[in-house]
Structures are given as structure tokens and as C-alpha cells.
């Protein structure tokens, strides 16, 4: 059944729009860096350069990839939501839900298959990002030590000490996008077209991201429990030392949300009257 689900997803032309958008954004950032990257780096390093003597290829593939990832922070969840939000609502909208559920398939299995297909889609999206983002950036800009500029410090990562960080960051991003897929599938169970679940998913992510970033005491108590607070924990892999305790905590919180969203989806979907 999973094979059939993936077949349905990848036979739809709109599935590839996400890959095209991501490729286009990545190319644009790479082009901008290729043309004007040196002045961007000297502007960013202005304060640091006065106190430290930094040589070598600063504008390298690793730094460009980091900039690409930062820029796509809000886009990738949207692209995942485009497919995952369509999972159940899309079937309802097309009218195929009636045909699907009059076949001997359990509703729980339908939810799980849709969810797993959403994860596979998100993973492929990230693999594609790794290819066009990291792979092409290294080809265009070469390698070198990476400077990670933070608001209160900067971290210098040596060239041979970076690739594993990207691999773990992408693995963590896969978990974060799985959380987005789970939320989108959950909202999808309530809709009879995919617009609502897609906008709903993005709305929730945007609002919770604002809560996660606002330095207001009222929100500080709920911040550790918001999944958006933990979705950006991949940045920790570019710290020295890597804050593994905080990252594991984020992994646990995200897993908890995934289980909650999918369990709720299964319960609601099993009780739902199909009237579409």
C-alpha cells in the first residue's frame, strides 16, 4: 500500500514543484554569493576582523550551505506541508476517499501509510537539498574552515571537522520535518480540501516560532514545550562543543509530538463519518 501511495504522490506534477522551488532558491543564494559573496563576508566579519586575523577561503561551500539552510528555515516546512496536508484532505477533495475506504483497508493503516509517505517525501526533499545545497556549494566555492557567526560569539570549525556535522544536521532536520508532516496529516483529517490543512500547518508553525523566539517572561515557561523551539536544534551541531544534552532533549520532544499528532489523527479518522 505504501508503494501505491508513493506512486500516487510522484505521478502528480505538483509534487515536483517543491523540488523546483528549493532548487531555484538555493541557486539564487549561490549566485548571489558567487557574485557578491566577498563583500557580504567582509560586512559580516567586520567586527571580528578587527580583533582576529582570519585567512584562507572563508567564503567556502560549507558557509554558503549554512546560509542556504538558514534562508530555507521557513520554506522547507511549507513544502512538506504542501504534500502532507494533502494526504487525507486531498483524497476527500478528489472524492477518492469514498472509493478508498470501501476497499478492505483499515483506516489506521490509511493514516500510517499517508504519514510514512509524507516522511519519505520530506526525506527526499532533504536529500535533494543536500545535493544542490551542500554538493553544489562545495563544487562552486570549494571547502575550507567554516565560521559560524552567532549573536554573541563566533565558532571556527576546521575543514576536516564539518561534514559529519552536516550529516547529523540533515538527520535532525528529517526528524523536524517529520513533525511538520505529522501536524499537517493531523490537520488534514479535518479538511475536505488541502488548502486549510496547508495554511493551518504554516499558521501554527509561524505563530509558535514567534512564541519560541520572543524574549517575554510569559512565554518562557511554555517555550520548552513548543515543537518549534526544538525544530531549530540542528544548529547545535555547528557549535563547539556540540550541546548533545539539549539536542537529545529536542529529539525527545519532537518524537513526543509526532506520536501525539499521529495517535490523534488515527482516533479522529476512525470515528469520522465520510461525507465528502
Amino acid at each position, binding site marked *: *500500500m505504501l508503494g501505491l501511495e508513493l506512486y500516487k504522490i510522484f505521478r502528480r506534477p505538483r509534487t515536483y514543484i517543491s523540488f523546483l522551488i528549493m532548487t531555484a532558491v538555493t541557486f539564487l543564494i549561490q549566485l548571489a554569493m558567487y557574485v557578491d559573496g566577498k563583500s557580504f563576508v567582509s560586512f559580516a566579519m567586520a567586527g571580528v576582523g578587527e580583533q582576529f586575523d582570519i585567512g584562507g577561503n572563508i567564503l567556502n561551500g560549507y558557509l554558503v550551505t549554512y546560509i542556504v539552510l538558514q534562508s530555507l528555515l521557513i520554506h522547507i516546512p511549507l513544502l512538506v506541508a504542501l504534500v502532507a496536508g494533502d494526504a487525507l484532505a486531498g483524497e476527500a477533495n*478528489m472524492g477518492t476517499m*469514498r472509493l*478508498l*475506504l470501501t*476497499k478492505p483497508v483499515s483506516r489506521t493503516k490509511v493514516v500510517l501509510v499517508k504519514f510514512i509517505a509524507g516522511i519519505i517525501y520530506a526525506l527526499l526533499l532533504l536529500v535533494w537539498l543536500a545535493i544542490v545545497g551542500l554538493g553544489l556549494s562545495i563544487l562552486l566555492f570549494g571547502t575550507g574552515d567554516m565560521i559560524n557567526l552567532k549573536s554573541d560569539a563566533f565558532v571556527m570549525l576546521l575543514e576536516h571537522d564539518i561534514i559529519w556535522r552536516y550529516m547529523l544536521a540533515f538527520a535532525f532536520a528529517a526528524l523536524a520535518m517529520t513533525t511538520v508532516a505529522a501536524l499537517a496529516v493531523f490537520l488534514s483529517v479535518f479538511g475536505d480540501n488541502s488548502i486549510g490543512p496547508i495554511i493551518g500547518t504554516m499558521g501554527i508553525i509561524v505563530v509558535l516560532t514567534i512564541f519560541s523566539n520572543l524574549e517575554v517572561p510569559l512565554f518562557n515557561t511554555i517555550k520548552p514545550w513548543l515543537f518549534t523551539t526544538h525544530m531549530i536544534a540542528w544548529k547545535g551541531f555547528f557549535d563547539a562543543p556540540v550541546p548533545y544534552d539539549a539536542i537529545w532533549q529536542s529529539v525527545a520532544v519532537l518524537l513526543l509530538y509526532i506520536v501525539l499528532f499521529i495517535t490523534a489523527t488515527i482516533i479522529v479518522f476512525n*470515528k469520522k*463519518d465520510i461525507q465528502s
Partner: protein
Amino acid sequence: MPEHIAEVKGLTKKFDDFIAVDDLSFAIGKGQVYGFLGPNGAGKSTTIRMLTGLIHPTAGEVLIDGESFSRNRMRALQQIGAIVERPDMYKYLSAWDNLRIFARLSRKHIPADRLHEVIELVGLKGRESDKVKAYSQGMKQRLGIAIALVHDPELLILDEPTNGLDPQGIAEMRELIKTLGTQMGKTILISSHLLYEIEQVATHMLIIHKGKKVVEGKVSDLLNPNETIFEVRILPDDSIMSKLQEKGWGQYVAEGGNSSTLLFRMHPRKMPGLNKYLVEEKVHVLEIRSKHSLEEYFLSLTNENNAGAGAV
């Protein structure tokens, strides 16, 4: 082995305060082409959705081949092939892909030969590679029937299969249903709001109105030109229905205001006898109206329904 492939017992569905299906009971025997008739909004689709597990009943039970649908959903659905309302499919895929996908979901190993067989049966040979978005409504209906048939189910459920078809499409669909029913011996439940559609293909028939059973029986008996439908309006009487049923008079009761409407199908010569029986049982008869035939009666239900819809 159960005599009926499907049995519906006291099926009820409420949506908030609205009762869409009200204590409905009927049974479909093996090999029957069972016409399910009612004006638009009578509760046909809601009943079919409960028969296919799309909607959960508020009360009552559906048995498929003697087993409870709710307790054996997977087994029940293996024995059903259904098109509920429109035959919607994945438009961006070919007819063959749609058929293959839904065949794989039937939990049976279905060889490619079977897929070719049903494509040929529904008259889509040579067009199976076309995308569904290029199909006419009639072709979609036929593909829907192929999808419903592909796993060789015991019961085929077709919900208003002639809806949206042109006259030629309606005639072709009618022939296909006749082939499936009379030549291939399939048990078919077919719903419609048109009596003449049911009359031409069904062996048995059930009419529902406002979610309640009105009349059920063999089409040849129900459409017997020697019998007349009588509507008898009486003051409510709790015991009279069971007495009428015992004596073989009662057909249906519809509550309305401070009176009840009883419906009888009989030869006009028998009416005085019924009237006499009601008087002897001290039932207050308010009115007796003859509807002449089932067609006329059904038309009055449809007109009543349309008038109601117009008033809203």
C-alpha cells in the same frame, strides 16, 4: 449459509437533530437485483454509506453474509464492491492505473487477466491507457463499475449509477446492469430516485421516504396494475399497527401531526373489508385516499419532496 447477502436491522442515522435514516430494516437475497428507491434526500446515500462503512450508524446493524459489518469490517468489505455517489478517481492517472491501484487494495491476488476482463466487460477496451481526466461521465461510471467488480465481490452496490449520463449513457448503463444481474448472477443493490429506472433492471424493490421504509417487495408484485395504493389517515392508535400486521393488512405507518398515515397496497375490492376491520377495532378513520398505482404514489412523494425543497 445465510440466505441474505446483506441484512439491515433497525438502521438509524442522526446528524444533530436531523434523522436521515430512521429505523430502517431490509434484506437483500443472493442473486437479487435490489432497487433502492426514494426521492432526493430520502436517505438513500446515507444508508449506502452505512452499508459500506463510510458512515457510522447511530443505531442498528448491518450484516454482510450473516456477519456484523462493524465487527468484521475487513471481511465485509472484501465481499462488497461499491460506487458511492460519483465515480471519482485519480484524474491524473490512467484508467488502468486506477484499476490496478484499487485492485491491489482488495486484499486478493488479482492477475492482470482479470483486469483486462473487467475492462472489456464495461466496454473500455482500447481506452484503458487514457487518463481519467479525459473520460466522459459515462466512461467514469463504467470504470467505477470495473473497479467495484475487479475483486469479484458478492454484492455490488451502485449509488445512482445513471446520474449525469446522457440518454445513450443511461441505456448502456442499464444494459450493463442487466448483464451483471441476469447473465452473471451478481447480487446488486442499485439506488435511484427514478422509478422507471429501477423498474427496468430490478427484481426486488424498496422505497424509502424521509429515512423510513415505505414499501418493499418483488417489482412484479409492487407494480401489479390490479392493485391500488391506499393512504388511510387515522387518529394515533398504538395497538393497531401490530394488529394490522398480524392480519396481513399493514404496510407502513408515517406519523404526522395528531394523526397517523397508514399505507396499503391491495385490490380495490378489498378496501371495504379493511375499512370495516378498522371500525370494528374502534380506530378513528379520518380519511381514505386512493393513489391508484405505485407510480402515482411515488410521484406524489417526489412532488411533495420537491415542493418542500422549493419552500426552503
